[in-house]
């Protein structure tokens, strides 16, 4: 009996110690997993959005359980400040979204050349877009993987009001635009025919470039490279056309007190305005509020409970007021870049490559450029905007017009290499609309470019 008791005690102790050992092992395994997990930090401004990141993170971490994605979405100004502070101290996020132009140029020395590490992914993208990414990166390297393209400017219109006013065709030149505005004024005396947010300097720089490129395609890029002066006759003509639009009532001086997002888009969505000018990225607005996502939220900014909820919206490129085909500005809108420091850690570099592939060609793309309501035209070969939420003819035609113009009528990039010049372009537009002398405004612009 004594020996049985001894054996039982021994067995109990053995089982207990084994289970303890096992749980300890599991803990160790868990600890090891935790320590092995690669953490990737990804910073951006509004794209991807906070909501996008929820699904992107979930999908990516499910596919790659050993990688943890930590995102930070900021307002653009805060984003620039954060990047500056972080990179100055030698740190910075692992992954960051960039826009070609000043933002990419500024941080380019800190970014990894993706030509080799992301070769397989880049090979699946539209070659012209990859070439553009290389060109924007300085030609020697690819500092950003193009997530998607965008272009500006388009007239978003309320097709229901157009129909009520008896307007059958969208305007294609100055005369037809004036005619449409007059008809709208007669049909809806309490509504604004057209709103444009000329209070915002970021928007006005694009207005200047658009009008200049209507006169001569690619002229702003030439001036940016110093090949043409900013006070050349082409720019004088462009600003004279802008002035003519003000004089003929197409653009009202009141627009100088209107912001694109705080005022203009709201007035249009509230039915107080019939047309509104914005970039192609606002394409989600063409979707009817009855199209909702999984959380029951309408796509993009057309939030519902507005006077225009049952109206049909459409879009067309801003007509070329100098004559000819409409032109748009843009190119790669958002690129994904990788911090050079990531290359020091092979596991992190591998995780970064997986993320790029996931976002540009994999499932992640469907959460971003392929998701309903996205305004970014995807870089993946053969991919287009998700048209499932644009059931009406006017809105579907609007989507096609935006995609077609972005692919075929691109006159040049947005912005300039010198941000001070871009700021001044916007000021010139404001002053010309206010009635200042065009020549002296352009002379001041030229002086700033020479500073």
């Amino acid at each position: 009996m004594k020996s049985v008791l001894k054996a039982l005690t021994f067995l109990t102790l053995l089982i207990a110690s084994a289970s303890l050992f096992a749980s300890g092992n599991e803990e160790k395994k868990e600890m090891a997993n935790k320590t092995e997990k690669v953490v990737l930090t990804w910073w951006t401004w509004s794209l991807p959005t906070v909501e996008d990141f929820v699904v992107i993170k979930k999908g990516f971490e499910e596919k790659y359980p050993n990688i943890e994605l930590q995102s930070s979405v900021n307002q653009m100004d805060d984003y620039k400040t954060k990047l500056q502070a972080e990179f100055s101290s030698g740190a910075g996020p692992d992954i960051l979204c960039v826009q070609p132009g000043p933002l990419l140029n500024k941080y380019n020395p800190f970014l990894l050349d993706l030509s080799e590490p992301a070769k397989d992914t880049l090979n699946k993208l539209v070659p012209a877009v990859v070439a553009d990414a290389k060109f924007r990166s300085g030609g020697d390297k690819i500092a950003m993987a193009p997530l998607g393209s965008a272009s500006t400017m388009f007239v978003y219109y309320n097709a229901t009001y157009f129909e009520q006013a008896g307007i059958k065709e969208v305007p294609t030149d100055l005369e037809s635009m004036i005619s449409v505005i007059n008809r709208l004024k007669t049909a809806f005396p309490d509504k604004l025919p057209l709103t444009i947010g000329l209070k915002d300097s970021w928007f006005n720089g694009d207005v200047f470039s658009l009008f200049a490129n209507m006169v001569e395609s690619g002229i702003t890029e030439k001036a940016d490279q110093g090949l043409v002066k900013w006070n050349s006759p082409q720019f004088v003509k462009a600003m004279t056309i802008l002035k003519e639009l003000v004089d003929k009532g197409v653009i009202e001086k009141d627009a100088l007190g209107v912001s694109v997002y705080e005022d203009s888009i709201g007035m249009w969505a509230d039915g107080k305005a019939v047309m509104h000018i914005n970039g192609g990225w606002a394409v989600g607005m063409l979707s009817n509020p009855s199209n909702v996502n999984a959380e029951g939220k309408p796509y993009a900014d057309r939030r519902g409970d507005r006077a225009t909820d049952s109206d049909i919206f459409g879009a067309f490129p801003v007509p070329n007021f100098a004559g000819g085909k409409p032109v748009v500005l843009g190119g790669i809108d958002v690129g994904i870049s990788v911090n050079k420091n990531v290359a020091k850690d092979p596991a992190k570099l591998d995780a970064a490559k997986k993320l790029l592939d996931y976002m540009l060609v994999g499932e992640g793309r469907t959460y971003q450029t392929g998701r309903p309501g996205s305004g970014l035209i995807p870089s993946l070969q053969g991919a287009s905007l998700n048209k499932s939420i644009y059931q009406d003819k006017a809105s579907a035609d609007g989507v096609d017009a935006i995609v077609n113009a972005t692919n075929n009528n691109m006159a040049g990039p947005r912005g300039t290499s010198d941000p001070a010049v871009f700021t001044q372009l916007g000021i010139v537009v404001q002053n010309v609309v206010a009635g200042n002398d065009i020549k002296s405004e352009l002379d001041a612009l030229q002086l700033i470019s020479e500073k």
Partner: protein
Amino acid sequence: MKKPKSGSLLRMKRAEVLSGYLFITPIIILLGLFVFYGLFYVFKLSFYKWDGFMPETMVFRGLKNYSILIKDPLSLKAIVNVVIFMLSTVTVQMFLGLCIALLLRPKLLGHSFFKAIVYIPVTLSTVVIARTFMGLYEPYFGIINVFLRNMGLDSLTRVWLGDPKTALWCIIIANIFQWTGAQMVFYIAGLTTISEDVFEAAQIDGAGFWKTLKSIVWPGLWSTHTTVIVLGIVGAIKTFDIVWLLTQGGPGNSTQFPATMLYQAVAQNSQAGYGAAISVFMIVISVLLSALQISFNKKKQEA
């Protein structure tokens, strides 16, 4: 031999002197690190051309940033704007603040309520104030223009924030609305330093509201005036948030202030050296104007 003054370092024991210095060492280190080093660095930076990013790209350019600043017509515009802003806001806020403080002095029924009402805008974020005023000034459906149209005064409607003639005044009005409550509090505190007996004596001698204001209240509040004016001057020179939120310095630079120029130079145009020159200019002007005002008020008080 001249006897050292009481409290002089010469009369103190060495240990006392040492412990005194030890006591102020932490604050000297903190000030040195966070204030004086920053000031020195900005001053140094103002002689360089730099994008504000990689220190190795800094290029010494002597006084060129200051030369650009002086020659830039925008600087003159910013100075004129800040002077108009300073004179208007300081004067109106002082007048309104003092009047409200005087009206609330007798502690009539509900005076605390009214004090709170006037003070509420001070506690609000400038973003809230700006958003509220944007709603008032909006050209098409803003409350002011809608009211004017309904009254048949269409000719008086304006693009309030989009018209170079009215934009600055719109900012001034928003600023006055926001900060009058703060001046009121200063004056309420200042009024408590004037004895009630003085007011009673003035009343017995037959002094009315204006006579009391001119002969008792106004001269009795010189130190409060100094505080209010100095804060107003410094506040005006560094004004940024309300301007940026309402007009971003536009339309067409018509509402540029030194601080908006500074922001545009550093944050938007990557001109950190030029921005530093603007900062040095702002610091010098603030110090000079404040010193001038303090010495003026000192003389006035002594007189």
